[in-house]
């Protein structure tokens, strides 16, 4: 563990170790240095002490000598001065000895023991000797001298003294020498120490430097090297070479770094490989998708949320004459949807593509038009499907198909059918015609057998004709190319129509017909519905024995109307109840021949019924007759009843479109008009005759009886002839064929204002005329006219000038104006002009008379609504008569009065 720890942390350890070593080294060096330094100082101190001791000894020597001298001097001359010197010398010697003694004592533990003892001993001896001399011998000597001691004594003393001094001095000299030697020694030692110190210092420094260099090298090798290698490896990695690996040579942390790097590189490589794989897969998928899209025959383009084309397949480009790039970045509306014929730009808001993007639902458009780059257009069928991402619509995909071909094919099929139908029928016409004539005996009687043969021929020709009709019929219906012209029709009418067409047939075989209709309406194609009922009826009749009854009923069942045709024939077995509705199916094979059926009748019925969203089925049991039931969705009766609330004029609204009737009724009710709705021309004529409305609003394009026919019919009948008619049609007035007998015309879709203007104008012309304004400057003529009108019970006002006329018309509000154009100052024309400008009075009919012919300009100025006739050479009565005629034409009520 330690080993691995060591290994693991070896670098740190090594670094620490190396640092420790260096530090230790430095510390040792320092210690040594300190030590050496200490030694040197010691030495210095010793040297200093020695020097001091030496100087002390020398001084002592000097002082001893000095004392000796003093003593001698004193012995020679006992003088006070010399005594003082002697005392001084003695004192200073004592001092010196103390000092030296002290110095010696203080200086303990120095140098070698022997030398020490020698030195010390010397000093001690010296000191003793000196002391002996100073303390004993010297004073003795003196006393001896003083005391007059013998010379011998004195000499002994002197001799002793001198001996002592000699010893002292000798010893001191010895000491000094010794000391000197020692000092020299010491000095040498000190030098040696200093030298050692320098050596150690240099060594330590050197080795430190060496170690640092070593460490640096080591670092360079063990740390920086790996780091550099890793950095280099990283660079290679970054450059893209994911196989880069770094040698894991080092130990410890650098190795860890290298290992970590390698691991990272390996991981990166793995990720990269995986990425490449995914990328490849994606490419494969994409290219497959691309292939699909490119191979798709339909144009496919993708839009983003704003409707900008982000993607388009080649087919889309091709179909629209664009390069795919040219489509990108533009909106679908811009690039593909053309303006319509009037130059109105494509309705973006109402576009199903916009809707798909908005409401997240797919929208299919069966017929639309796209515009190619070169401006040409082609019909398309397309589906816009929204793309959802995270629950939000992020765009849409539109798949479209150029249906020019399909349309062409459909058209060709239609044409073919049409042509075939014509081509088949043409020879059949001749065949049937000629055979029919022969069989009819038109060209003379025939022998029985011949007659019989011809009868066969004729009946089979008929059958062939029916067959062709049925086949073409069912073919057209089932291919969806027949559009049902659906409208509101009364059940009653359909049933009656069917009954009528089979009436003769029924009578011919002695079958009774019963019908029980109801008041109900369905939204259906009347011809087809009648055809279907007729079919069912003729079947019923065919399969009924003579004397039987075929009943046709209708009843309401919830939201449906159920028609039932019931016969008392031999019935249909249960297993055939379904199959009889199929083509060329008969209950019994022999039926075809016997009954002359085509085998398609019921199939056609079913086709018709299904196209109306209904159902058809048969209920029967053998020998119990059969009932064929047809159910169709009922139409909710929401026609507003003719409103009697209004006090205003009654308007007969004739239009086959129920919504138009509803809307108009609403508008009329608002202004207090009464509405009398009529669903068809025929109904209109009937109602008009019955209700005598004040004005008729007439649609032109109606089935069965068109507006023109209705107008003609209305004008023909005296009861309805005079009722003014306002024509309302999508056909513009200039182009649409004029409707004789009508004055007013408005274009659908019309706005409220136009409607009421027209109605009021129509009403005004033919309303009650009770107030007449006569504008005539000739007083007599004016009076005559006034009288004539008053006799008729009219209120009359007479104005003699233009100004008066204007004033009067405002006051009276006449229903009719009679005006002499020959008013002075051309006033006549100005009155007309003024009236025309007037809002209300502009509608008043004007009868104008003039003494002279009018120029075209003048006639034009008067306008087409003004009746003009020549005063000319008429007598007042004749004139009045003419006027009355005119007035009478304009107002039937007046005539009656």
């Amino acid at each position, binding site marked *: 563990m330690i080993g691995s720890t060591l290994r693991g942390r070896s670098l740190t350890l090594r670094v620490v170790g190396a640092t420790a070593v260096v530090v230790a080294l430095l510390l040792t060096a320092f210690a040594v240095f300190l030590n050496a330094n200490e030694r040197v100082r010691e030495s210095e101190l010793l040297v200093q002490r020695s020097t001091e001791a030496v100087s002390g000894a020398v001084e002592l020597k000097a002082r001893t000598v000095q004392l000796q001298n003093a003593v001698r001097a004193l012995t020679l001359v006992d003088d006070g001065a010399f005594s003082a010197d002697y005392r001084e010398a003695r004192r200073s010697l004592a001092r010196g000895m103390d000092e030296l003694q002290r110095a010696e004592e203080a200086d303990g533990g120095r140098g070698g023991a022997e030398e020490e003892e020698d030195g010390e001993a010397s000093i001690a001896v010296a000191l003793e000797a000196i002391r002996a001399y100073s303390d004993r011998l010297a004073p003795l000597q003196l006393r001896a001298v003083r005391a007059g001691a013998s010379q011998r004594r004195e000499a002994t003393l002197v001799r002793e003294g001198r001996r002592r001094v000699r010893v002292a001095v000798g010893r001191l000299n010895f000491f000094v020498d010794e000391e000197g030697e020692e000092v020299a020694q010491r000095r040498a030692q000190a030098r040696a120490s200093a030298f050692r110190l320098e050596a150690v210092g240099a060594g330590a420094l050197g080795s430190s430097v060496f170690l640092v260099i070593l460490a640096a090298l080591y670092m360079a090798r063990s740390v920086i090297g790996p780091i550099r290698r890793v950095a280099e490896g990283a660079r290679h990695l970054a450059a893209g070479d994911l196989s880069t690996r770094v040698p894991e040579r080092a130990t410890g942390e650098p190795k860890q770094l290298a290992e970590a790097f390698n691991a990272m590189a390996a991981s990166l490589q793995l990720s990269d490989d995986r990425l490449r794989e995914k990328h490849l897969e994606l490419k494969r998928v994409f290219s497959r998708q691309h292939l699909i899209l490119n191979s798709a025959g339909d144009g496919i383009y993708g839009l983003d949320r704003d409707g900008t084309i982000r993607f388009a397949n080649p087919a889309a480009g091709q179909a629209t004459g664009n390069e795919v790039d040219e489509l990108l970045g533009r909106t679908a509306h811009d690039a593909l949807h053309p303006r319509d014929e009037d130059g109105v730009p494509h309705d973006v808001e109402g576009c199903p593509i916009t809707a798909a993007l908005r409401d997240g639902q797919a929208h299919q458009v069966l017929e639309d038009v796209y515009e190619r780059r070169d401006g040409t257009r082609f019909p398309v069928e397309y589906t816009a499907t929204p793309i959802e991402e995270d629950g939000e619509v992020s765009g849409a995909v539109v798949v479209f198909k150029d249906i020019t071909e399909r349309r062409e094919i459909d058209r060709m099929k239609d044409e073919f059918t049409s042509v075939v139908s014509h081509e088949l029928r043409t020879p059949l016409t001749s065949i049937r015609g000629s055979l*029919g004539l022969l069989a*009819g005996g038109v*060209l003379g009687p025939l022998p029985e057998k011949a007659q019989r043969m011809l009868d066969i021929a004729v009946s089979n020709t008929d059958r062939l004709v029916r067959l062709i009709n049925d086949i073409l019929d069912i073919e057209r219906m089932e291919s969806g190319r027949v559009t049902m012209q659906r409208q509101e029709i009364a059940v009653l009418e359909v049933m009656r129509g069917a009954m009528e067409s089979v009436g003769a047939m029924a009578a011919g075989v002695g079958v009774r017909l019963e019908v029980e209709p109801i008041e109900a309406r369905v939204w259906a194609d009347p011809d087809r519905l009648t055809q279907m009922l007729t079919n069912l009826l003729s079947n019923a009749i065919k399969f009924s024995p003579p004397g039987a009854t075929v009943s046709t009923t209708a009843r309401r069942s919830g939201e449906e109307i159920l028609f039932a045709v019931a016969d008392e024939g031999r019935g249909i077995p249960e297993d055939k109840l379904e199959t009889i509705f199929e083509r060329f199916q008969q209950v019994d094979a022999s039926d075809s021949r016997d009954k002359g059926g085509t085998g398609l009748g019921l199939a056609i019925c079913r086709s018709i019924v299904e196209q109306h969203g209904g159902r058809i089925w048969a209920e029967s049991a053998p020998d119990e007759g059969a009932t064929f039931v047809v159910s169709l969705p009922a139409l909710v009766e929401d026609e507003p009843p003719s409103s009697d609330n209004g006090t205003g004029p009654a308007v007969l609204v004739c239009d086959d479109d129920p919504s138009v009737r509803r809307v108009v009724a609403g508008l009329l009710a608002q202004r207090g008009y009464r509405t009398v709705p009529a669903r068809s021309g025929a109904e209109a004529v009937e109602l008009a005759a019955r209700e005598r409305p004040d004005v008729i609003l007439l649609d032109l394009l109606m089935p069965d009886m068109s507006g023109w026919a209705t107008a003609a019919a209305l004008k023909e009948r005296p009861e309805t002839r005079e009722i003014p008619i306002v024509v309302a049609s999508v056909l513009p007035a200039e182009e649409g064929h004029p409707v004789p007998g009508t004055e007013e015309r408005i274009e659908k879709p019309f706005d409220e204002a136009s409607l009421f203007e027209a109605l009021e104008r129509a009403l005004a012309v033919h309303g009650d005329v009770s107030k007449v304004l006569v504008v005539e400057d000739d007083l007599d003529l004016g009076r005559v006219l006034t009288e004539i009108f008053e006799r008729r019970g009219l209120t009359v006002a007479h104005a003699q000038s233009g100004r008066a006329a204007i004033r009067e018309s405002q006051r009276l509000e006449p229903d009719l104006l009679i005006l002499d154009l020959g008013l002075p100052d051309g006033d006549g024309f100005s009155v007309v002009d003024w009236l025309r400008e007037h809002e209300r009075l502009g509608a008043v009919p004007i009868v104008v008379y003039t003494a002279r012919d009018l120029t075209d300009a003048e006639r034009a100025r008067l306008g087409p609504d003004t009746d003009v006739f020549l005063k000319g050479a008429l007598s007042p009565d004749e004139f009045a008569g003419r006027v009355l005629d005119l007035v009478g034409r304009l107002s039937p009520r007046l005539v009656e009065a």
Partner: protein
Amino acid sequence: MAGQRILVIDDEEDIREVAQVSLEAVGGYEVLTAASGREGLETARAEQPDAILLDWMMPDMDGPATFEELRGDATIRDIPVVMLTAKVQAADRRRLAELGVSAVLPKPFEPMKLAEQVADALGWDA
């Protein structure tokens, strides 16, 4: 009414013949024929028949075109026209009605009934 003159315009000879026999023998009418729209117009102008039986599908100038020309010509505008056609679609009939055709009879027609149908359509007493 017997004695009325009817002009039959149809490009098929057989049909003209059958129609003629039918109208003459059964209806007692006097029948004129024309093999094309153009010829028919000429004949109409020249002969002023009481009614015209007009085929729809004809080459060159078809029924509706002929009818239009007819209406455009004041001299023959008021001659009632009965259209003969295999087209029995309601839409087509409506279109014809709006054009002003008096009636539409389907082809093939019933030879024995043709005269009656024409009389009915034109409001003649049969």
